[in-house]
């Protein structure tokens, strides 16, 4: 409610002195009313469900019957659950495989878009397009691209004389396929963000560098990159938060025969990310209490990695 508390003093100044002095919320009720829709919606669809999931994680519940108090046993099991730890590992590997190439490609794309090319807006539009495409549709297409005998990727490998890889049937192949999908989907979006960052860098810095005889590579590492740091931080944090919550990508990509669980993540659970594991526990096993505990486990991991990201980028900034 920080916003609500900061608003009244600003209003005092514009209120005519003749108004009868009233105290507390009654004096400013219409201002509170004006900002209330957000808070009411947030309360109903944000805070209450979050609070309820915390409550739920202390119980056993099959979703329909009566809840049974479980204390901290769900969390106790969570910390010893090798399947959950494996899902954290999977998520991080997929995240790293997706994020670092993605940031590199996005940066390159942004620099290219920033230079004077024709049809710049058309390129921007084209690069942004993957981001607004449905993940389910993308995953179905990527399923074909990575299929063993008729996939595009294997066709390319064979064209350069390499062997076929059973991408969706080997633990590493699955991770690479999911990461490639995520890279493809997010590169354009982040390129647009980087582009916005690039355009805030004053042109006279580049001019000065050119006069001093700096080449394009030097200019990039000495001017562009340092001044792009806030943008880089933003991109990293957003990629961390979305990457650590990947769900639809593995779910649709690894969906097989209809009488199998769609949440098991392929052979050796190689594609079972944290959120996929959460879904399996909650909606396959009807273990809503444990599902809620897993959700809080995911929350802790996301917070931890956001902090790490923040510290890393911040540190470098101080030097």
């Amino acid at each position, binding site marked *: 409610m920080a916003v609500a508390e900061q608003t009244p003093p600003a209003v005092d100044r514009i209120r005519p002195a003749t108004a009868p002095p009233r105290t507390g919320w009654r004096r400013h009720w219409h201002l509170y009313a004006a900002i209330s829709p957000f808070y009411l919606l947030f309360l109903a669809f944000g805070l209450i469900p979050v609070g309820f999931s915390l409550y739920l994680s202390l119980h056993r519940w099959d979703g329909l019957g009566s809840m049974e108090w479980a204390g901290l046993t769900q969390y106790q099991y969570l910390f010893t659950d090798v399947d959950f730890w494996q899902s954290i590992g999977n998520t991080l590997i997929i995240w790293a495989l997706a994020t670092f190439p993605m940031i590199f490609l996005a940066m390159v794309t942004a620099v290219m878009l920033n230079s004077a090319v024709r049809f710049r807006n058309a390129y921007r539009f084209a690069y942004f397009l993957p981001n607004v495409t449905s993940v389910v549709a993308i995953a179905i297409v990527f399923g074909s691209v990575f299929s063993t005998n008729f996939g595009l990727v294997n066709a390319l490998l064979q064209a350069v004389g390499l062997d076929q890889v059973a991408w969706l049937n080997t633990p590493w192949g699955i991770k690479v396929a999911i990461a490639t999908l995520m890279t493809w989907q997010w590169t354009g979006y982040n390129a647009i963000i980087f582009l916005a960052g690039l355009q805030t860098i004053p042109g006279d810095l580049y001019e000065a560098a050119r006069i001093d005889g700096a080449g394009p590579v030097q200019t990039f590492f000495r001017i562009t990159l340092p001044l792009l740091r806030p943008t880089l931080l933003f991109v990293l944090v957003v990629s961390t938060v979305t990457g650590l919550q990947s769900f639809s990508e593995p779910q649709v990509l690894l969906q097989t025969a209809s009488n*199998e669980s769609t949440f098991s993540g392929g052979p050796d659970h190689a594609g079972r990310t944290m959120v996929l594991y959460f879904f399996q526990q909650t*909606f396959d096993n009807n273990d809503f209490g444990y599902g809620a505990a897993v959700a809080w486990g995911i929350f802790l991991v996301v917070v931890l990695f956001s902090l790490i990201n923040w510290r890393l980028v911040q540190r470098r900034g101080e030097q």
Partner: protein
Amino acid sequence: MRLSRRGLLRAGLAGTAATALGGLASGCAVPTGSTGRNMVLWYWSGGLSDTVVKNAKARYGGSVDLDAIQIGGYYRSKLITTLAGRAHIPDIAGLRGEDMASYLPNADQFVDLRTLGAEKLRSRYLDWKWQQAVAPDGSLVGLPIDVGPVVHYYQPAVYEKAGLPHEPADVSRELDTWDKFFTAGERLKKRLPGTYILTDVVSVFEMSIGQGTSRFVDEDRRFIGDGPHVRACWDRAVEAKRRGIVSDIVSGTPDSISATEKGTLPSQLNASWAAGDLKLAYPKTEGHWRVADCPGGPSNVGGSFLAITKACREPERAFEIISWMLDSRNQAQGFVDAGLFPSTPASYAMPKLREPDPFFGGQITMDVFGPAAEKIPVAFNSPYDIALGQPIRDEIKNVGVLGKDPAKAWEDAMDSCRRIAKHLGVAF
């Protein structure tokens, strides 16, 4: 009164606040079930025959407005959300067969159909399917919509080329056991290199479990997945892998579609409803398929129910509607419209179900499906079955796909089950 800007703003804000408050107030008065003349029915796309739903609306239109809604997405979670939230609960709800085990412990959410005279309809339905809707307390939760008898779909031209039996009656007779089926698989591979009788090992394991009378957890909440009945199914799947008759193709991918079209994956062990999927996925192969009995005996995959919720204000009328919608004549219509295989044996003899199917080369498929549906074994399906069967399924998949050592895989599966059983409070 002169309208000042401030006055307008104030009026606007007051209006917003009033709307918000009004929304909250009406939020407290959400009806538990349907309102007015409505009788709300929830099902999923393809879950009921469109013709039957339309006829039911017309037939009962004099007394109620039957409001049949197709719910998209994850059906079960949407249904239990309304049940747990006690708001807008449908009067009649479809329950999927695979979710049934998780509804039964909460039978108090539904009207016990015995109290509405369901017992006298019992002889209409397959007994094993009826028993799947009986809760531990003896109450009857739903009436069966359909069943999913498992059969052996195959391409006779490929079998013939490999010197295997290829007429449906011969295939049913000569490949009646798993062992004979595996031997045929070896012959198929030898005569036509690159051709596999099985896409993956998981189907062998799954169908074998379905052919038995016990699964992974028993009535007393004890884990029995380490028992000889599961071990036999496991060993059978491992055997299929060992004999090299399993492809390394992932089912449902473009690879499996093209291999099936080319005839290098000429057979499938799957439920009756898979016939519809075959027709949809391989329209070019019309006439190239036949149906025979599944090796090892009949089993079932899927098949749903219609239940009446406790929120229904007119249970008698609702029961009248569902018992009409699910009589043998309408179930026959369901098969014609939506491929829903009837749970009422009387339907099997009806002319429209005995028509030759051009996709299966003019075979009368009911001759295979019907007897299979009547002989399906009854097995107790615990609400913990999914959670404790999954580790074993996952490990057999690892054996099949990654070539993991079967002994190690079984050990890992049992370790996982022990851990999960303890967590769920199931005795190991």
